[in-house]
């Protein structure tokens, strides 16, 4: 089955090691006949779901896992079929993938690159996973994407928002459905300009690591193009739990907007701290002081509680969308788990479906065939309007949601409201855009 990256010489050497080191058993099946890594031979195919199950993002990972399990159920013909009924491609028939029953294994990324690669490797090497799906941070996504490229399996990224995932670090075997920092900026800037005016001074607090930098760069560029001025950009340590010393000087800097380029626990804390300082009650330069959180998630909004009220940010998808695809997904997810799905759950669900569909259309599980089927694939009915998986960088292009914290949430899931659905055309960019430059897709690797 699995022999990753086997060169001819490697085979010979391995044979020598095996021959010299141990007495060979009488029954010897050299399984180098497989055409690609983990080619399914029986009546089933195994998918690998790699999500954070421990650590601060464990709840987000749980939600991703729920969506992935739901997708498997739908693929195997269980449940109400969810988005399979609204998906523009009709290749999936509810009988598994290519007639094989879909099974899955799970791993814990711990939101650490090393652990994520270890769990992905174990799913590939031990459990025979043919693809890896999931994750909730860019560092992990890029690390696992590189691994899947080397191992010769397809990687369907979960929540990863850094420009680098499909920019500097893009890989031929890796695909991203989620949106990115550039798209957040492009979608947010016009809305911000119309909501808060074009003459604004923004103060950025940015998580001091790659994702934070790329998002800050994107937001600053997009808002500056609208006429905003960036007063300052302060980098904050990842390990910070208390942001008061970074927030205290903001009011006195002449800024009238605070942009928090933070995610997860960092964002919950920095937003909570900013509200404690009463920033949104202040008037600076004759204008109401505003706070922007470029990347929102439902769990972060829940963690920050009433502090998100009136704060604008962007999202990949939201359960309140009223298109048929979203309604179908929310219904089957909600009935199974009693709660609406998060946007990372949506991405993981859609990625699983897209992968299965690509296998059906390609007629093979061979990663190169699957990749070819995904490249340039246009589809609809998956909740984001007409969507394109661009061949140049394996990035999905679709509508982006601009969200606002709701003033009177009716329940714990109803924390955000959709302010605007920014059309796809507005967030598109050329594959060689400078923020995405420097990468090389390479060629697909089938193992």
């Amino acid at each position, binding site marked *: *089955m*699995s*022999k*990753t*990256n*086997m*060169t001819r*010489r*490697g085979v010979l*050497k*391995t*044979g020598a*090691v*095996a021959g010299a*080191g*141990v007495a*060979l058993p009488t029954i*010897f*099946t*050299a399984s180098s006949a497989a055409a690609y890594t983990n080619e399914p031979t029986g009546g089933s195919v195994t998918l690998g779901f790699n999500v954070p*199950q*421990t650590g601060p993002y464990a709840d987000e*990972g*749980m939600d991703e896992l729920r969506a992935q*399990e739901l997708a498997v159920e739908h693929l195997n013909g269980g449940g109400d079929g969810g988005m399979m009924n609204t998906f523009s491609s009709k290749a999936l028939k509810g009988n598994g993938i290519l007639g094989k029953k879909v099974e899955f*294994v*799970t*791993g*814990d990324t711990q939101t*650490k*690159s*090393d*652990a994520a*690669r*270890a*769990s992905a*490797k*174990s799913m590939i*090497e*031990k*459990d025979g996973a043919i693809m890896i799906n999931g994750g909730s941070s*860019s*560092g992990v996504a*890029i690390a696992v994407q*590189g*691994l899947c490229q*080397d191992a010769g399996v397809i990687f369907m990224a979960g929540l990863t928002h850094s420009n*680098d995932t499909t920019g500097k*670090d893009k890989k031929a075997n890796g695909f991203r459905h989620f949106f990115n920092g550039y798209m957040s900026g492009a979608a947010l800037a016009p809305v911000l300009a119309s909501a808060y005016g074009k003459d604004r001074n923004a103060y950025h607090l940015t998580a*001091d*690591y*790659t*994702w934070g930098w790329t998002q800050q760069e994107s937001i600053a560029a997009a808002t500056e193009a609208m006429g905003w001025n960036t007063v300052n950009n302060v*980098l904050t*340590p*990842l*390990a910070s739990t208390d942001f008061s010393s970074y927030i205290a000087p903001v009011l006195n800097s002449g800024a009238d907007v605070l942009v928090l380029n933070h995610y997860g626990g960092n964002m919950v804390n920095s937003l909570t701290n900013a509200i404690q300082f009463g920033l949104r009650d202040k008037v600076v330069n004759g204008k109401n002081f505003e706070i922007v959180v470029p990347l929102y998630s439902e769990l972060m909004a829940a963690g920050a509680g009433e502090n998100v009220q009136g704060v604008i940010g962007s999202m990949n998808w939201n359960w309140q969308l009223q298109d048929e695809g979203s309604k179908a997904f929310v219904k089957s997810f909600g009935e199974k788990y009693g709660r609406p799905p998060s946007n990372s759950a949506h991405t993981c669900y859609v990625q699983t479906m897209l992968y299965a569909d690509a296998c059906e259309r390609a007629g093979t599980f061979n990663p190169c065939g699957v990749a070819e089927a995904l490249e340039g694939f246009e589809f609809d009915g998956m909740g984001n309007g007409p969507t394109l998986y661009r061949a140049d960088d394996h990035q999905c292009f679709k509508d982006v949601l601009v969200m606002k914290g709701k003033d009177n949430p009716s329940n714990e899931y109803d924390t955000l409201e959709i302010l605007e659905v920014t059309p796809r055309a507005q967030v598109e960019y050329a594959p060689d855009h400078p923020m995405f430059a*420097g990468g*090389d897709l*390479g060629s697909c690797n089938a193992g």
Partner: protein
Amino acid sequence: MLGLNKKDMTLLIVVTILTLSAPFILNPFPTDSAMAQFNAGYPDLMQRFAIFGIFAIGFNLLFGLTGYLSFGHAAFLGVGSYSVVWMYKLLDYNVIWGLPLAIVTSGIFALLIGFVSMRRSGIYFSILTLAFAQMSFNLAYSVLTPITNGETGLQVYNNDPQVLMGANEASSPHLFGLVMNSSAKVGVGAWEFTFNNGYYFCGVIAILVFYLSIRIFRSPFGMMLRAIKSNQTRMAYTGLNPRPYTLAAFVISGMYAGLAGGLLASMDPLAGAERMQWTASGEVVLMTILGGAGTLMGPVLGAGFIKYFENIFSKINDTVLHNWFAFLPDGLEDFVVFLIHPFIGKGWHLTLGILFMLVVTFLPGGLVEGGQRIAAMIKRTKEDEDTPAKTEPAE
């Protein structure tokens, strides 16, 4: 033989046999059986057993012998990894350049940190090493991104120089063409065994450094280190300067950590900053104490124990549980799954925490003491004699 006495030689031979036959031993269950979940004989985990075994052996040379508890050894692991990946980027994928460099750079790093930290002892020493390692981690994650590639982790890009890269050279780590991640699979009946180049490479190095650690344990230097742990006052009033001894032990164990870090990057060409975090330092402390500090085999056992939990228990999910207990009546099946659920999959931390508490409460000498007690029990029933089990100082 090899400068070892009979007992040590036996131990070394046993370890060598176990290491070489790990692909069999760790895969005791047929591939399609429900118990296959517990098989650990796949390349990545076997490599980790060997690599973290090396890390823990090295840590034990410092902590087990001198009693100096370092909370910063992960920094050396990280430095080793970065060295190897940089050699991939600059020269080529042959690990022969990176590994010696990893040992050297981590040795220099350890010398600098050790020189300062060794000025204090006890918990003050621990906090100093912790401070240095956390500084390294925080900077590697942020300000030093040009060198470490920060959050993403250092990796090889297509536009890297790779000046020695040959036309037909493998595009993943190898030793003169012996590609680390290639494996041969052998099926025997219902079983399937994987023989991986990378694992045997790590395994052989692990045996070598294990042998080296036996030699250090039995050397006058090793005795001096134990003497330092035992009584620093007598040491000084016997005309011996403890500091160069402890510093040498610190540097040697730092080099072991650097080698382990280098091997991590040799198996998987990516170096993430997280491997320098204090939790990673804490992990090796736990491995050593759990297995039995100051013993030869303890740290290796502890490393295997923790890595097994991390990689095997975390992957058991409810679906797997339902499969196992499918034979039970429905209601009972759900109840059993409900009972076990908190301890597996996402709850593997909980199980590990409970095991730490149990082991350290009831087996102060770690897993090795557990083994000795069982051996003593067997012996006692055999000889039918009531001699109390004698604890060996360094075994």
